[in-house]
């Protein structure tokens, strides 16, 4: 079975929604990191469970931190009528010294662990992107707490088709990197079948209103 792709108009609309949300998230990240955040053109597509790992690995390989074999991943669920999971992937070098990146002094560093920082940054990023999307779609997401999925694992293991409970999903990818420092991370949103159709309806309503 193949899944019906979005029309060029629907895809364009969704990409623009993500683009604006990404801009807001980049601005939030720039604020906490006190540094300019370079944004990629977001990528939006429907993928099969078989292909998702390759699709994500391919996008990561193109970035500076890109070794798809050595990723640290934080996952989080979001839900209302649309539902899915967000995964923030940090490259091996991308999360070594987040405390330093955030300009935390010694006293603060003692109050939190590196793992906690990782979860925090991932939470802020996915929260900002998803809030931005929700706002434009005139909805509101609830979020689960972020959890650490893997440390130094491969994308293939993280997105193993046997572990995924869906056949097709809407894949949204955004890349953030800091020009000055060696930091970059990759945000992946995955929304399974039911959300693909629901999103189609939402996008059609948006397009009609234009």
């Amino acid at each position, binding site marked *: 079975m193949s899944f019906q792709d979005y029309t060029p108009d629907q895809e364009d609309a969704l990409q623009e929604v993500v683009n604006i949300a990404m801009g807001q998230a980049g601005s939030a990240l720039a604020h906490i990191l006190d540094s300019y955040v370079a944004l990629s053109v977001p990528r939006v597509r429907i993928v099969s469970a078989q292909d998702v790992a390759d699709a994500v690995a391919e996008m990561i390989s193109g970035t500076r931190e890109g070794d798809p074999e050595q990723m640290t991943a934080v996952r989080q669920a979001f839900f209302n009528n649309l539902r899915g999971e967000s995964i923030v992937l940090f490259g091996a070098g991308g999360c070594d010294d987040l405390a330093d990146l955030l300009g935390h002094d010694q006293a603060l560093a003692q109050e*939190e662990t590196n793992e*906690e920082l990782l*979860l925090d940054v991932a*939470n802020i990023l996915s929260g*900002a992107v998803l*809030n931005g999307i929700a706002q434009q779609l005139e909805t509101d997401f609830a979020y689960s707490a972020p959890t650490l999925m893997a440390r130094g694992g491969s994308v293939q293991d993280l997105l193993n088709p046997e572990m995924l409970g869906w056949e097709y999903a809407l894949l949204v990818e955004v890349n953030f990197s800091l020009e000055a420092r060696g930091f970059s991370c990759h945000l992946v949103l995955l929304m399974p079948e039911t959300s693909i159709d629901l999103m189609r309806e939402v996008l059609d309503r948006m397009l009609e209103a234009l």
Partner: protein
Amino acid sequence: MSGDGGPDSELLEVIVDRVNVGVLVVDERFAVARWNRFMAMHSGIAPLEALGRDLFELFPDLPRRWLTQKLRSVFLLGNYAFTSWEQRPYLFRFPHNRPATAASVDCMRQDCTFIPIRDATDRVTHVCITVTDVTDACIYQMQLLDAMRRLEEMSVRDALTGIFNRGHIEARLRDEVARSRRHGDPLSVILLDVDDFKRVNDRHGHKAGDTVLREVVRRITGNLRQHDVCGRYGGEEFTVVLPGTDLPSARVVAERLRRAVACQAVETSAGPIKLSITLGVAQLDPDTIDHEMLLDRADRALYQGKRAGRDRVMTAADGC
């Protein structure tokens, strides 16, 4: 922040107050604006006492810098934020509800959620913090980890004697062969067998047989060096891996083991039993292809020892 009347909002008030989750709300100056019964009961601070007070004044032990930063980010970005007991065991130091059954956990484990509260103009004016008691989940996880650790241990140990089982000792030997080849260090192996063990079992019973095997293991392991590894290879057959040891030294070790077993009868419930062991020793050399061949050479030396009258050490160099 106050309810605006109506039966629904009264109902909500009751729910928020009585729900079995801590609910507190702070304003931009971190003054407490709401304090439900869960918080009051566990902290011993009544709502009237808490309302309007600075959160850090009420709880001087809170990680001040970290929590300030966390709250500021929610006010500023309007995002949800979270803490999990796995990274931060608790935010508020409360006693837990299992004082009798959870001695290993010192206080309530908590998952917390920080929720931005907006006013009519969409500005975040307050942050609601919910505190969930996850002590039980934490205890289950600790028990699970403990069980997994024990299972893993069991999967490499021999149940009767407590030393490594055959699978593990073979894996270790394979690793040691590879290491020896890499670094050029000598490596020897001893294969040993309890003489006439079948007779012990037949004459004194399996219980005495078990006691004998345990005692033999105790005497062997008591005469090995720290980095030597000992495992049970079969019924009454044992393997000792000797890293960094050449054949003459391995022979000395084997002789020590032989004497340790033969020197004194083993005390069992069926009375003292005199015992001996026969040992075959082999050293890894360039002609030995792998660990299996090394074991095979030690096994043949052992067989020679049995044929020559038992209670002795035979090396693979002794013409076999």
